[in-house]
């Protein structure tokens, strides 16, 4: 079938890898702190600029940004948890207040990101908007290296989380804090610290995803915001309560988005591509209305039961 070419499949898999990485962090944070983290958008963007800054300042290989971003964004996320989320949690803040908090954090971080971007331009005389590093990417069997790195990173991260949660003492403590914080507290687990660690990991995951983005698509200080709807959609499609559902969600959404757009564009016309950003929203709405249990069968609905 000529509608779907190899390059489309490559695009799908690459996009999905990113979505899954981002959704993984969102779902982890949702499971632990019961809040939809709107600041994830900024976390991702920071990761992207870490990579770019390193290439600009140290002429490094773009992939070097990945571990650096993991640590940096992880730390930022951790600090923000202690500064903002934890005080609110201790005050029993409602879901809505927590969401406003993450939105406010996102706003602040956006400010910082832009300031940094301006700084890069002034200090290094380089553009800091519309950056694309795919030109420096390697190629393997005729395909862009990012495809393999993204998928590989996703596999490593998912495996690492799996091992952590199921085979380490820390992981068990983390899961206990997720399932039943009161009980965990009662048996001596420092729930607050567990949540902080999960924020470190969740933020770190966003950082990793962000660090790889410049090799895939154009980066602006608003890249995270642009991808926000998609990353949440991927999380929800996979079922926000199942951490590994995020991987599935990323794959499914990526499929619908990329392949869907390509197929529609060839049938209806190229102008369809303009409306691509609407697709995650349509998928989101469809899932929430027709299969409200998400792919993992969790009740998203209001009210009793």
């Amino acid at each position: 079938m000529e509608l779907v070419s190899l390059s489309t499949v490559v695009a799908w898999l690459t996009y999905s890898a990113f979505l899954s990485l981002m959704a993984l962090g969102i779902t982890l944070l949702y499971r632990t702190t019961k809040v939809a983290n709107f600041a994830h958008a900024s976390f991702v963007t920071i990761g992207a600029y870490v990579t770019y800054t390193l290439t600009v300042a140290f002429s490094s290989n773009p992939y070097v940004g990945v571990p650096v971003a993991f640590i940096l964004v992880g730390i930022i996320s951790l600090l923000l948890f202690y500064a903002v989320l934890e005080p609110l949690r201790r005050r029993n803040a409602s879901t809505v207040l927590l969401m406003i908090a993450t939105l406010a954090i996102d706003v602040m971080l956006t400010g910082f990101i832009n300031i940094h971007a301006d700084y890069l331009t002034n200090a290094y005389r380089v553009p800091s908007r519309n950056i694309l590093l795919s030109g420096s990417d390697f190629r393997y069997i005729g395909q862009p290296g990012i495809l393999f790195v993204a998928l590989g990173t996703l596999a490593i991260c998912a495996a690492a989380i799996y091992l952590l949660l199921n085979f380490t003492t820390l992981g068990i403590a983390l899961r206990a804090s997720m399932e039943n914080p009161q009980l965990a507290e009662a048996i001596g687990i420092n729930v607050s610290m567990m949540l902080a660690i999960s924020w470190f990991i969740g933020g770190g995951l966003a950082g990793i995803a962000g660090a790889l983005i410049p090799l895939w698509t154009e980066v602006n200080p608003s890249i995270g915001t642009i991808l926000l709807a998609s990353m949440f959609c991927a999380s929800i499609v996979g079922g926000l309560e199942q951490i590994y559902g995020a991987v599935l969600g990323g794959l499914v959404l990526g499929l619908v988005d990329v392949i869907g757009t390509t197929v529609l564009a060839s049938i209806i016309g190229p102008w369809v591509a303009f409306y691509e950003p609407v697709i995650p929203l349509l998928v989101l709405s469809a899932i929430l209305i027709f299969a409200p249990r998400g792919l993992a069968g969790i009740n998203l609905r209001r009210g009793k039961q």
Partner: protein
Amino acid sequence: MVLFIVDLLALFAVYLVINIGLNIQQGITGIPNFGILFAVAGGAYITAGLSTRLTLALLGIQTNLNPVSDNVSVLQLVNPILRSQPIIAISLFILFLMIGGAAGAAMGLISSAPAIRLREDYLAITLLAFGEILNIVGQGYTPLIGGPPGVNLPDVLAWAGEYRFYAGSFVLLLVAIAIFAVADYIIKTPFGRTLKAIRDNETVARALGKSITQYRTVSILIGSTLCGIAGSLWVIYSGAITPTLARFDWTFLPWLMILLGGMGSNRGTFVGTLIFVTLDKLIIYYKYTFVGILPFDIIWLNYLLLGLIAILILIYRPEGIVRETQIKQRPSPESKKFSQG
């Protein structure tokens, strides 16, 4: 300086209407609408898109020019006529507001579909995502408002001549205060009381015979209509629009304002909006004094400061400035007699 105050009042008016709309949804009914941008943009873009066409129709002008793509030329034709026909201009103004309201209501109707089904957090995410749709449509579907460059609107305030902005500001304030008064009334009715009951305890409200779906839908419709009207007011005052209404300005800031003022209280919304808009404008007005001091562009100061303020309010004073007004109901004289007996 005077123009500064005029602009401030206009901005205040627009935000007041939006915030009242948001407060009715979130503060009164407990619906976390993080997607009010959807309704505001609906009002703004659809009003702008239809404005020139309607003006041509009302003035009975036939032309081969396209009201959107040949926008500038058409307006050169139309504006002078409007300047000399205040009655038609004012009728158009009212018509534009109605369109804005209708557009907002339509967006609200779409938003209500998830709102009656989803839990808070999922709802917030979904509505936030909805917000961006119209920007995408506005940029891609050129016949609406001409794509990225946007369009201008027929100047329905042209009759005020050089006092155009003063008149605009005054009219906007009038509309905003009227809406404030109506909202105040509505909140105090048994209808408003039922919205609050649903917010406070949905299960019991259901047990008492209230149709939750109906009330939530009406609440969203009211709130979204107001947001749409605000969008309309904004484009009329500005005279032009591009499909770039930002979530920061039209979703985050309204939330910050009602948080500051006190969610649930209509008066609080007024206070929060006034304080915020004034401070914000002052910062922008005096930003040049900051230019040398701060090592970065002052545009971003807004983001840093406001994000921080929001967080501080959330941690230290989440109930805001004005506590929710108690509706005092006095027992009727007969009952009073009874209890004394």
